[in-house]
């Protein structure tokens, strides 16, 4: 086992070998260990059990709260069309999907709302101050080596201050390895249903022993057309069953997009450090078909369009300038442009619009950790950010926001058994905007908003039960009102306060190897979240004019459990994996006892949901079958038949074959079938999802 590890990490850094624990070395271990963990985290992987167990031991030691993490296996990541699709297999979250290749996809973890989920690329947050929802459909797994989701702070990872503010965080890591990229050339082509064609290419080369580089490009084109079925039957007064059962075509959902990344990374041996700088650009042109409503025959239908482009330059550096002190520096500059427009000439039913939005921002962060003793470490982090937004909409107030986050924390370790970490986050946001003449904006200029978010995370690993970990946390989080909530013409309310959320969780994870070659992981959490001052939209004068108010109260009780089994009997024998998970979420609206919404399940959250998958790998062949099920959901908190979305079960299958071509080069062919049974389902009402889609993917590394 040591041989495996030492091939990646120099021997003198192995904490087990030395029996002493030093944060400085732990941080140096960070990247390779994360690499191991992402390969061998919970349940999704197909690595050898020895590596897994070792990695699990290391994880408990160094990164205890990783038990609050879910990680996508490389196979899942490789065959998912986007990051959002890979996340569907995770527990206790909902992916809100408007359908098709270009539809908006956001992730809502533990029913708090997608604004509470931070998305981080290499530890630096992705921003969208306009509506605080990151469209995960635009991130291609080809650019990232790992995808993970965390619901608690991770104290030993020098995370940025604003990550303490996210109730949950999605982490995309752009490159594996310990800081000097040298991957060679990799290419992927993906094509299939809806005339999808997506070639990607990546080239990595070490420029020197200390500096590596990577360049990648992806282009996606899809016409987004798919058939969908609509049927509704009822019994008429004569006792006959009457209704309709028709197949329509989803049109105007095409997409063309391209993204480019360039990355430099390297090591700083004298300071035990590594650094990386990444430039990322993305652009797309897509159709937005809108909801399916009854229209007259033969009349052209909606053809709204969206063009967008975004670019960022970000960098991180981790170093250890003194004994016991570790620092992480981060910076980012970003620019986003979005244009949404309709075509009333083609479709006179369309509401005329041609809205353009521009956002720009700069961000810098410094995090540090200092080891006081064997059991005590103190951490601190400080972030600063400035965002502005411009739009051509009449009376737009051109808001700007200065944000500051300050976090301090203490982490206490008792041997291998107990980890306790407490953090306090203070954040301050100062908005400026040009006061508008438009009545109804509840103008409150130069508003400063504060929030305090403490958290306490506990992890206990009783020595009498190897492989068992008991974890708990109590945290507070918040959600700042977005620019749309505050300043959007006619709808914004600039008096809004931040939302507040309290989160409590208790759970366990247990890892055991009952027989040689087989490993069983069980993970379970029971949680309770409470949100108050939730920002909701209420109609004012009529259906067209809504305004945002801080009136919502939501209470969430949830339980999830995941059991995964891996069986690997070594060379020449098939590797089998299987997992089953179940999530219970009772998320109820307690805003106003006088309204019909009181006590109702909040929109889009199913009470019961679950996933299951089985997979096998043998002699270069691999096959996985995945099932996802969800109980009924409602599109408003008034849980009536009018707003009900039917339950559904989805089946996906992936078959892969690796072919050796030449010396050490592999060609991996995958056939991905989504929605095998062409189940008719909707996540958002009146946005039908595609039926069976088939994709053929070829991955080649030179």
């Amino acid at each position: 086992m040591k041989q495996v590890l030492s091939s990646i990490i120099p021997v003198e850094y192995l904490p087990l070998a030395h029996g002493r624990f030093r944060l400085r070395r732990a941080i140096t271990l960070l990247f390779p260990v994360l690499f191991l963990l992402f390969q061998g985290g919970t349940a999704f992987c197909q690595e050898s059990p020895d590596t897994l167990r070792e990695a699990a031991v290391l994880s408990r030691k160094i990164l205890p709260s990783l038990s609050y993490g879910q990680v996508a296996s490389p196979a899942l990541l490789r065959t998912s069309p986007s990051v959002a699709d890979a996340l569907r297999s995770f527990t206790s979250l909902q992916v809100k999907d408007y359908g098709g290749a270009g539809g908006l996809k956001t992730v809502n973890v533990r029913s708090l709302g997608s604004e509470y989920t931070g998305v981080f690329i290499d530890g630096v947050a992705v921003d969208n101050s306009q509506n605080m929802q990151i469209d995960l459909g635009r991130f291609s797994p080809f650019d990232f080596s790992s995808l993970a989701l965390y619901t608690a702070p991770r104290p030993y990872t020098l995370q940025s201050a604003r990550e303490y503010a996210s109730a949950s965080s999605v982490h995309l890591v752009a490159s594996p390895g310990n800081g000097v990229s040298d991957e060679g050339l990799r290419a992927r082509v993906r094509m299939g249903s809806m005339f999808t064609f997506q070639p990607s290419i990546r080239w990595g080369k070490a420029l020197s022993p200390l500096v590596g580089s990577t360049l990648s490009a992806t282009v996606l084109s899809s016409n987004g057309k798919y058939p969908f079925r609509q049927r509704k039957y009822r019994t008429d007064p004569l006792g006959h069953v009457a209704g309709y059962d028709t197949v329509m075509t989803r049109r105007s959902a095409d997409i063309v997009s391209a993204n480019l990344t360039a990355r430099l990374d390297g090591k700083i041996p004298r300071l035990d450090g590594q650094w990386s700088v990444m430039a990322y650009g993305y652009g797309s042109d897509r159709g937005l078909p809108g909801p399916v409503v009854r229209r007259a025959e033969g009349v052209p239908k909606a053809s709204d369009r969206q063009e967008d482009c975004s670019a960022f330059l970000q960098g991180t550096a981790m170093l250890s300038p003194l004994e016991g002190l570790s620092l992480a520096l981060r910076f980012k500059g970003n620019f986003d442009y979005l244009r949404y427009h309709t075509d009333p000439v083609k479709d006179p039913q369309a509401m005329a619009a041609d809205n353009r939005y521009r956002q720009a921002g700069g961000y810098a962060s410094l995090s540090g950790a200092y080891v006081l003793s064997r059991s005590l470490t103190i951490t601190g982090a400080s972030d600063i950010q400035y965002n502005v937004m411009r739009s051509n909409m009449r009376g737009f107030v051109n808001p700007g926001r200065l944000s500051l986050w300050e976090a301090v924390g203490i982490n206490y370790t008792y041997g291998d058994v107990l980890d306790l970490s407490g953090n306090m986050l203070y954040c301050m946001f100062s908005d400026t905007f040009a006061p508008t003449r438009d009545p109804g904006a509840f103008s409150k200029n130069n508003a400063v908003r504060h929030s305090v978010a403490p958290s306490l995370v506990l992890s206990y690993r009783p020595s009498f039960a190897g492989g068992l970990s008991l974890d708990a946390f109590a945290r507070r989080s918040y959600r700042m009102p977005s620019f749309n909530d505050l300043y959007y013409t006619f709808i914004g309310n600039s008096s809004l306060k931040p939302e507040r959320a309290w989160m409590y969780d208790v759970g366990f994870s247990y890892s055991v190897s009952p027989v040689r070659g087989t490993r069983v992981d069980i993970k379970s959490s029971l949680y309770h979240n409470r949100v108050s001052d939730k920002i909701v939209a209420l109609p004012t004068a009529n259906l067209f004019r809504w305004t945002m108010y801080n009136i919502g109260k939501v209470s969430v009780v949830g339980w999830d459990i995941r059991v995964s089994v891996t069986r690997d009997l070594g060379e020449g024998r098939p590797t089998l994996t299987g997992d089953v998970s179940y999530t219970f979420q009772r998320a109820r609206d307690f805003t106003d006892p006088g309204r019909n919404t009181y006590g109702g399940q909040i929109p889009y959250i199913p009470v019961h949901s679950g996933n299951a998958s089985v997979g096998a790998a043998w002699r270069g062949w691999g096959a996985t079958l995945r099932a996802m099920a969800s109980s009924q959901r409602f599109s408003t908190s008034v849980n009536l038949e009018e707003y009900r979305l039917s339950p559904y079960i989805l089946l996906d299958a992936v078959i892969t074959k690796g072919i050796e071509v030449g010396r050490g080069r592999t060609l991996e062919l995958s056939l991905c079938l989504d929605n095998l049974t062409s189940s008719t389902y909707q996540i958002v009402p009146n946005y039908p999802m595609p039926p069976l889609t088939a994709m053929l993917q070829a991955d080649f590394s030179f």
Partner: protein
Amino acid sequence: MKKFFALLVCSCTLLFAVSGCNWGINPDDRGNTGYTSEDESLAGDVVTVGESESPFYKLFVVNEGSFGGNNASLDFLRFKDGKYVNGAFAKMNPAVVGGLGDTANDVKVFLNSLWIVLNGSGIVQVLNPFNEKVLSEATSSYSGSVAIPSPRQIAFDYPNNCVYVTSYDGATFEYTQDGVTGTDKKGSLYKVSLDNLAVLEKVEVGYQPEGVTVAGDNIYVANSGGYHYSLTGQYDNTVTVVNRSLFRKIAEIEVADNLKDVCTDGTNYVWVSSQGDFYSRHSSIHRIDVAKNELSTSLPEAVSQVRCSSWTSLGTVSNGYKIYIIGTDDEFNWEPDFVKSYSLYEVDMASGNVKKVPFAGTDAASLKTPYGLCVNPYNGHLYICDAADFVSPGTVTAFDADLKKVWTHTAGIVCGHPILFAPVTVY
């Protein structure tokens, strides 16, 4: 009251006594279409109506539905047995794909037909009011609907054998890169044949037209300018006058910002309502003299104090015409917990005399968001739709002339358009 109503029925019968009219479904024919909505299985709930002597057959209630939600619906209450049926269109027309449609905005009764305007679907749907079935099954060979882009309201012109539909008609505009310059396209008034529901012609009116009515030789269209406001900061404040025989715009009368509904006595006066700007200018009502196509001067002072969020009108030549309006003085207060207090106004069309009855202290005080009303001329009952919070199903409540509650029933989402239907005999 009975005498008044007898007069009404006679005048209706005389007026519509023409043979060969496709809209004159004979009440005796209703049994021939297979089944009616009188069937027990559609029963719904029974309401203690307390007005079995009414000559009206049904009260229809149209629920707008959520915007983009494709869930507009049609309810009715049948007076003779008190049965209330929710979602009657879907129940009686199960084969229509997508149900009634999206965002119903207007409902009118014409002879023995029921017309529903679906703004979000771009469809004006015609139904048989005896069984709520799409009209084509009862009478003619053509489809019982006509496609008009973003239709808002309709008005009938029987002598010219057509119906007029106001339409936003694909308002377009241009933005420069950073600023806003407006050249937005005005809306249209469509003319649709009553013979075969074909679109005959259209004429340009103002920005985002809403209400339409026929008086004298002309058609009067109220323009709101809602999109125009979002572009330029200005609402439209004109009533467009279109000549009926030439079907050409002949005048534009400046009234007030953000005009919505129009009603008329048919010959002398056209009253028009303005919604104000919701935050600083109050809603108001105004009168146009048809003979001169000008705003009336010298109306009583009380008229300028009338607030209008929804209205209905009825009357006869002999008894005079009245408008019934629900409005609130708390128009500018949008705080979520604030309870607005509404009043009922009765305005005489000819004299402009106003009678104001506050809801406070009556059963009507419990209404949260009165969104539409109609009046039963036979017994003076008021039927008021309450849209509640625009998300939960609303309610429709009947009040007597003293605003005492007679009955109430749950309706659909954004309940807003009640209308009474009495069958007429066509010769």
